[in-house]
């Protein structure tokens, strides 16, 4: 890959990153932070690549430690974000259901 191509990807990604979160509501700050946190757990892919190509014991140890930490970051991050968002689920429906229940009576 040429440096110019990398720079282009980098610059465009910055603008996409700015753009996608520009309208987030205060309520979602924490889950969004947590979700973004899980996404950078993608360093796991880098850790696997390095572990895969490691040639010395030291390299292997460092890379395997990185795989472990990155997995915790990625898997834990997505699970904890989901748990936060689970709390929001069905909120608009809850009062409606009770009204229906009353109407049924």
């Amino acid at each position, binding site marked *: 890959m040429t440096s110019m191509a990398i720079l282009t990807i980098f610059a465009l990604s910055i603008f996409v990153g700015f753009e*996608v979160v520009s309208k987030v509501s205060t309520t979602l700050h924490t889950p969004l932070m947590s*979700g973004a946190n899980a996404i950078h757990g993608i360093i796991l892919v880098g*850790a696997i690549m390095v572990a895969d190509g490691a040639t010395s014991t030291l390299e292997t140890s460092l890379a395997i430690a990185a795989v*472990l930490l990155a997995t915790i970051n990625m898997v*834990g991050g997505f699970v904890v974000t989901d748990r936060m968002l689970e709390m929001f689920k069905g909120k608009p429906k809850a009062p409606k259901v009770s009204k229906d229940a009353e109407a049924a009576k």
Partner: protein
Amino acid sequence: MNKNIYELLGLVVALSFILALKGLSAPKTARRGNLIGAGGATLATIVVFFAPLGVGKSHHNTILILAAIAIGVLVGVPAARKIQMTQMPQLVALFNGVGGGAAALVATAEYLNLGAGASKAEVVATVFTVIVGCTSFSGSVITFLKLQELMTTRPVVFPGGRFVIAATLAGVLGTGGWTISSGGNTPLLVMGGLALLFGVLFVLPVGGADVPIVISLLNAFTGLTVAASGYVLQSTLLIVAGTLVGASGTILTRKMAEAMGRSLFGTLFGAFTAKPQEAAGAAETRSVKSGSPDDVAILLNYAQRVVIVPGFGLAVAQAQHTVRELADMLAAKGIDVAYGIHPVAGRMPGHMNVLLAEANVPYEQLVEMDEVNPTFPQTDVVLVVGANDVVNPAAKTTPGCPIYGMPILDVSEAGNVIFLKRSMRPGFAGIENELLYDAKTTLLFGDAKDSLTKVVSALKAL
């Protein structure tokens, strides 16, 4: 696997992350967004095992890698599933820290692997990753300790501290330059050590309300380290994903700082400008008015409008269901009930919304700060449940105190203020609250859930 297919799948994953972030910024799509991101990440992890290799190369250490992933899942998933809602912020901080640590390790291992064959640009990217990754790691560990209250939550400032921090930063940059110019392993090692120290020193002077901003900032930093390792590893996916997190994290940090009325600059460079605070004043001897659950029930019963202000104490006591029971009872009596939600009540922005949503509090009753503030003069009773700093008038009246300038809920405008508190201990920011001594304030001491339960039964007896 064919190289084109491999890269195409990488593009799919990158797009899934964009969709994930986009989804996460709107309430309706948030959960789906997170699942899309998780799906993308899983796909990327599977695909990388089938990455096309150069001629004559083979895959190494596959068993070890799979074992490490298995252990990581066994550690990460239960931690994320069993954590109490109150402890989520520190868990996010910890996850961020291990991500930063992983990036630093990846860059170091690749640096060793490339040896003398590394190009200048690759060494620069490595140096950046190791510095920022190590800073993010140790900084996140300190925020974790602060939020878990394993160490003091107040800013830690020692005389001459800013010179020590400046010297450490100069040392980090100096050894960085040394690594870039001479290569070799020793400079990188020294640099990593200094960066770890810098992370600790950087976060120590940050107090109370600024901790969430720092977590968000470190999160953005970690994103950038992932992008830099992507450059070293020639992985477009890592560059895109890391940059996305870095950019969106920066915007998010700025938005959080705005919501709290904090200057981002002040938070960032607090470490360099913080002065040792004067020791807390002499023990307070002024009297406060404390009431019984019956007094509180009577006040509430004859009110026309009640605003409930929840804070971290509500989260600690797990009192969200009890508070909802009380609110429902009041509403059944024809009293106008609303929750005044400060954006940073609790330990993180949106913490209270998540907690009250868990108790199925109707969304319309959650009123944000800007909307609820003008209604306080028409409010008869404000019930402050385990909140302190977010209603502390010192934010308006005492220049120089750590929360000065933070927008607060103007509960002192209301007819009566009831505080449910565990003790007279000040809030997270460690500042005395004048409002507690005000004539219109009634205090009910005890665990928020116990107190609320007693108030509910007193109200039933009326």
